[in-house]
């Protein structure tokens, strides 16, 4: 008895100790390999592509706004459904709009009539060929021509949709808008279809099933009109815990995860292909321009000078990311104005002077409201709070959940400042810049400048592409000079692939194209 007791005690102790030790060594291996893993690619040098295979992708958020491609609002939903639905045109990796369901398009010189020729025998996932009827239905539905309810922002500009013959669809706008082509990336669905009940698109993958908070399953669509996808099946696993997401990659339970932080990538260790791109958004301290003391331009400028953006990027992602100086991100090459990036360089003396001029020689107290579920934004706010101490500004960070952020900050505009990333749901400059015109419903910063409004009206009405680009650049300059917001960066987007997966490509908008990835031997 006595003997048995000793053995029991001893073996228990050993078990506990070994568990504790291996936990330690597990932690150490990660720390011991700091920078090397953060570099891109290493495993198989000449890896041979394999067609087929089942791909598992880890995503942090379920598609819980809606499965309706014309009603979806969350970036995470857009990213997944990009593989299922297509529009008349679709974006490519360079940001151009290429024909998809349509094989060709023409924009009238007046800039208000778009004529599309349908591609021959594009098939829906249910096997039916796409007809002009389906296209007319889809566009009418998005514009709400029959219901009066516009589903996609900007589609209220559509005056009429007609199909003069079996192959042609003509869309007429109320006013000229040469940027409108980008809106035709809107999903084409079968005539009479309700996408919340039945998911039928024309994309390279067809929708098979979903289980809330568990997974979404897609399958390679064999009748796809374009270059078919490489893998047979895609399972999106919803893993909202950041730690679990990394461990699922390490264990091989998932093959691909996007939007990782550099800390997460460091934790991964070796054997993964890491791709670095940008998130395609503008991260900034967005400011409620009507609230004291931010209604004073000198205060906003002072804060712009007082923020060390390099330090933020170092802290967040070891210096990765791209600096921005206005409400446009660099991947939008056509419109991006690089000169604005360094308009405000870190200079606390200048900042203090401006504060004195503005009548706040001793600084003031301000609050930054941040959604708690976006760790990078929370971290950014914390770094900024520290930096602003140098000019006597005391920052209180107010953490709120996403629902509260949306209703209080975004819709209610009841806040002082907030750290967030603003992206474009469509590849148009207008999508980035419209929100700062005084009467915009999405102007959550309450920015108001008569000059801006005037130039904006001119820009959207312009039918000359070159002139329009110039005007949009002018708008960015106004935002920078007025220090409408404290612009920081377009955050880096890190994608990790395991199990020999290759072929991921970044787009200049927030989507995830899985048709191009492939496994290697």
């Amino acid at each position: 008895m006595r003997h048995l007791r000793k053995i029991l005690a001893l073996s228990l102790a050993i078990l506990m100790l070994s568990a504790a030790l291996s936990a330690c060594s597990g932690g150490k291996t990660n720390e011991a390999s700091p920078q090397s893993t953060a570099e891109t690619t290493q495993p198989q040098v000449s890896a041979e592509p394999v067609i087929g295979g089942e791909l598992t992708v880890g995503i942090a958020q379920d598609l819980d706004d809606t499965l309706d491609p014309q009603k979806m609002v969350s970036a995470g939903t857009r990213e997944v459904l990009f593989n299922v639905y297509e529009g008349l045109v679709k974006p490519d990796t360079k940001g151009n709009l290429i024909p998809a369901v349509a094989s060709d398009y023409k924009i009238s010189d007046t800039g208000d009539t778009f004529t599309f020729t349908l591609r021959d025998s594009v098939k829906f996932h249910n096997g039916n060929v796409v007809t002009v009827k389906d296209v007319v239905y889809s566009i009418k539905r998005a514009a709400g021509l029959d219901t009066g309810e516009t589903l996609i922002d900007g589609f209220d500009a559509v005056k009429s949709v007609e199909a003069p013959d079996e192959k042609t669809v003509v869309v007429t706008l109320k006013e000229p808008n040469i940027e409108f082509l980008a809106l035709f990336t809107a999903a084409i669905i079968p005539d009479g279809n309700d996408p919340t009940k039945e998911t039928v698109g024309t994309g390279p993958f067809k929708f098979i099933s979903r289980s809330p908070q568990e997974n979404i399953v897609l399958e390679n669509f064999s009748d796809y009109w374009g270059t078919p996808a490489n893998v047979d099946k895609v399972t999106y696993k919803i893993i909202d815990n950041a730690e679990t997401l990394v461990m699922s990659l390490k264990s091989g339970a998932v093959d691909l995860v996007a939007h990782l932080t550099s800390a997460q990538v460091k934790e991964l260790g070796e054997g993964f292909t890491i791709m670095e791109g940008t998130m395609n958004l503008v991260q900034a301290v967005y400011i409620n321009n009507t609230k004291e003391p931010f209604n004073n331009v000198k205060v906003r400028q002072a804060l712009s000078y007082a923020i060390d953006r390099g330090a933020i990027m170092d802290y967040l992602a070891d210096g990765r990311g791209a600096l921005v100086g206005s409400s446009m991100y660099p991947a939008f090459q056509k419109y991006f104005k690089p000169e604005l990036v360094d308009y405000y360089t870190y200079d606390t003396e200048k900042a203090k002077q401006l504060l004195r001029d503005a009548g706040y020689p001793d600084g003031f107290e301000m609050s930054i409201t941040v959604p708690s579920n976006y760790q990078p934004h929370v971290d950014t706010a914390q770094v900024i709070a520290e930096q602003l101490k140098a000019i006597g500004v005391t920052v209180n960070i107010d953490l709120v959940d996403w629902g509260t952020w949306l209703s209080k900050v975004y819709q209610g505009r009841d806040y002082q400042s907030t750290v967030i990333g603003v992206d474009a749901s469509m590849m148009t400059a207008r999508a980035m810049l419209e929100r700062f015109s005084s009467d915009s419903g999405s102007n959550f910063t309450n920015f108001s400048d008569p000059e801006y409004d005037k130039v904006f009206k001119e820009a959207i009405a312009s039918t000359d592409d070159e002139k329009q680009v110039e005007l949009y650049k002018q708008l960015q300059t106004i935002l920078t000079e007025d220090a409408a917001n404290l612009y920081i960066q377009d955050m880096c987007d890190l994608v990790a692939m395991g199990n020999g997966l290759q072929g991921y490509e970044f787009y200049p908008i927030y989507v995830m194209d899985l048709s191009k990835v492939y496994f290697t031997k």
Partner: protein
Amino acid sequence: MKYILKKVAIFLITLLGISVLVFLAFQIIPGDPTTRMLGTQATPEKVALLREQLGLNEPAVLRYFKWLVGFVKGDYGTSYSYNIPVSELLSGKIAITAALSGISFIMVLVISLPLGVILARFAHSIPDRIISVLNQIIMSIPAFFIGIIFTYVFGLIFKLFTPGDFIPYAEDPSKFWSFLVFPALAIALPKSAMVIKLLRSSMVKEMSEDYVRTAYSRGNSRWQVLSRHVMRNAIIPVITFLAVTLVDIIAGSIIIEQVFAIPGMGRLLLASIIGRDLPVVQTIIMIISIAVISVNYIADISYKYIDPRIRFR
């Protein structure tokens, strides 16, 4: 009979109170289902239209009573986020969480009851002291942290399971159960430590009572005394605690489901709170409440069978 009627009445009043509180909480916190559904595309017009479509423009009191009548009739409403009936949405999730909590509770019993008795039997010996210290340490580690350590140690190093690779029961029952072992253990360990400590001290206290000496003097062996006499008296406070533990386990599984990416009720509850999906939240809270109240009643009733001196009033 009167006792049962009284209990049922309290049961229903408690549930009603909870449902009112949940409903009130959702009236107070900022945002409603339209917030999530419209996201950053929300404009005042769109919000107004969607609120109209979802029936959110009716007065709150009316909406509450509509929900209540539906709930009593067995209609739990439709999820705003997923656009499917709540009953359909929850049917698979409840089973997963129940399985996880069930295994976890069995583990607590299997680990803590024998260990508690053995430690009491050999109280103040060296192994007892070592285990008591370990016990104290384990007790103070939160379950989610044990979960993370387990994932590293048993998942990534010993490869006893694949972290993040939950397999539904319908697909492969044996893989389903084996995946749940470590999450369940992560919940069970700190709880077991507490039960061990309580059972041990409760038994040690009983062992110094007079009736124990009497039992010995009647020629009973040490184990007989422990199992027949001491255990019966020592177990009453432990049962109360086990009831609390079971409730804690259900709550703990909500956290553990996040760590192990198990698509159970807990994850759905958290997601639904963020999405302001009231019908889902209401139903899940009701289910958890019913479970919690029932567990407490079962504990009450079990006292009577263990100790006939306890009478219901």
